[in-house]
């Protein structure tokens, strides 16, 4: 197991991804994510945003290239060691993927239970988290009884409850109105201020202007546009209190 230089959260080097015998959906992807950074991943539909995110949240291994996360080469890492890395990630899925038979509280508590946090120790943090996303009065509600915006906030709360080092969100504002989208973005910024590296996939140009310090990762037909090299060799910035 080789290690990336200290301080890098993610490093992609000449990564390619191909599903079975089709053409590559991602080609020669190289970038580095540093702690405490905020990234927007943009591109047209079919550009490969979701595929790149799947590589980031370890749902997929690339067909070629090198992917290092938290200093660990994930290509050579044995499969049974991947859960440890996944617990350092937070993921907001485009379709929320809430567990339908669990309450909002239990959905948010799920990552903590999976990580083995004692039941007595998770109650208060989950309540605080639901309060934080404005769902203090909806803790017992099942996903089917929540609105789209509420479901989205439960999904975000579940993604950040474990204080992940890397937060990956796939079109997190796609199902909510502009006001709510902005509010959700403020939640991501708040997490970012706590030191979490955030990657938000979106095609909403208006949203990009809301986070001035963010870096843009633009995908075009499976290739990452990086004319200045800022994604591959980004200017270092101070890490937050992760």
């Amino acid at each position, binding site marked *: 197991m080789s290690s990336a230089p200290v301080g890098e959260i993610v490093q992609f080097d000449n990564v390619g991804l191909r599903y079975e015998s089709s053409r590559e959906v991602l080609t020669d992807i190289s970038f580095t994510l540093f702690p405490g950074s905020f990234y927007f991943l943009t591109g047209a539909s079919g550009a490969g945003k979701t595929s790149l995110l799947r590589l980031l*949240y*370890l*749902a*997929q*291994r690339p067909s070629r290239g090198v992917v290092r996360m938290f200093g660990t080469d994930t290509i050579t890492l044995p*499969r*049974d*060691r*991947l*859960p*440890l890395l*996944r*617990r*350092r*990630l937070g*993921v907001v899925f485009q379709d929320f*993927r809430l*567990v339908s*038979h*669990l*309450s909002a509280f*239990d959905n948010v*508590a*799920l*990552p*903590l*239970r*999976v*990580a*083995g*946090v004692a*039941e007595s120790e998770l109650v208060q*943090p989950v309540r*605080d*988290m639901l*309060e*934080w*996303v*404005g*769902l*203090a*009065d*909806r803790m017992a509600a099942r996903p089917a009884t929540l609105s789209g915006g*509420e479901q989205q*906030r439960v999904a975000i709360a*579940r993604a950040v*409850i*474990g*204080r*992940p*080092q890397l937060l990956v969100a796939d079109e997190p504002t796609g199902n909510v109105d502009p006001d709510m989208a902005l*509010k959700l973005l*403020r*939640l991501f*910024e*708040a997490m970012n*201020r*706590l030191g979490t590296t955030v990657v938000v996939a979106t095609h909403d140009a208006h949203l990009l202007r809301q986070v001035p310090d963010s870096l843009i990762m633009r995908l075009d037909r499976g290739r990452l546009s990086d004319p200045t090299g800022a994604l591959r060799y980004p200017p270092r910035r101070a890490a937050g*209190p*992760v």
Partner: protein
Amino acid sequence: MSEPDPNGLGRLSEQPAVSDALPDDPSGVSGTQTARRARRAEIVPQDRLQGPIPWVIAIMVGLMVIAAAGALALRNTGQTAASDLAGGITVQIVEARPEVRARLAARAAEVLRRQPGVSEVAIVPPGELAALVEPWLGRVDGAPDDPAGADSGLPVPALIDARLAGPADPARLAALGAALRAEVPAARVDAQSTWLTPVFGAIESLTWLALALIVLLGLATGAAVLLAARTALGNNRATIEIVHLLGGTDAQIAGIFQRATALDAAGGSLAGFAAAWIVVSLLGRTFAALQAGLVTGGALGWGDWALLGLIPLAAVALATLTARWTVMRALKGML
């Protein structure tokens, strides 16, 4: 509806990151621990005793217990009969003339009593012998209403029932035969157990048949659990993927299914065993009422019931392991 409060981060920032509290080994959190926590909020919905599996297992366990009880009863019958007949020998005096036959029988009995290791010797009374064979042969020589020596019926050999201190093995039989024939040439010696050799063979065959049935039923139970686990896995694939992506290990996810299957199997096994116990007890009483030595010798003892009690335990273990194997195998297909 409340609004998100991005500024209310004070308490959250004091909270340690999950990854800070994690062991290096992701398997440090066991499936059992996760399953225990999942009890309060079941990660995989479990409609206990609603699906077919508990009932399939109940039927399988019931049939296995009945088959095993039959095998044990047959074994007991064989052992009791073999033990009863182990040291028994029968001496026949083949002589047509009743008065000579009676004299030779008395002399042969005397010879037997002199032999070392012969513990009991008794001449079977002619009347008892005649009554025994009358249903098949009709009136025979020596019938109660036909005094010995009248020679008014079919002649039957005189019989001497003797019991040895040890088993009636071929060497012992040969020695006794030689001693008898030296003084009573018409004497023939047989071990009583040899007459039941075909019966013992049949009992052994039936015992093997019962064991084969138990194995087949066990395999069928495993197959049923395998199919049920696959179905449950398919129905809950989305949830499993989420738990997997949140950092759940294969052992944790398998543990959840394993626990659900174990509970279902335990309920089914208990019901199946109880039903089989009632059936076997009723059958036992029916056979005991026959008052037939060979049949009542097959009664089940506490040791037998203890052995039968292992069947539901084995069924639970089999179902649990099958569920675990199925889920682990399916999870290997995910990254």
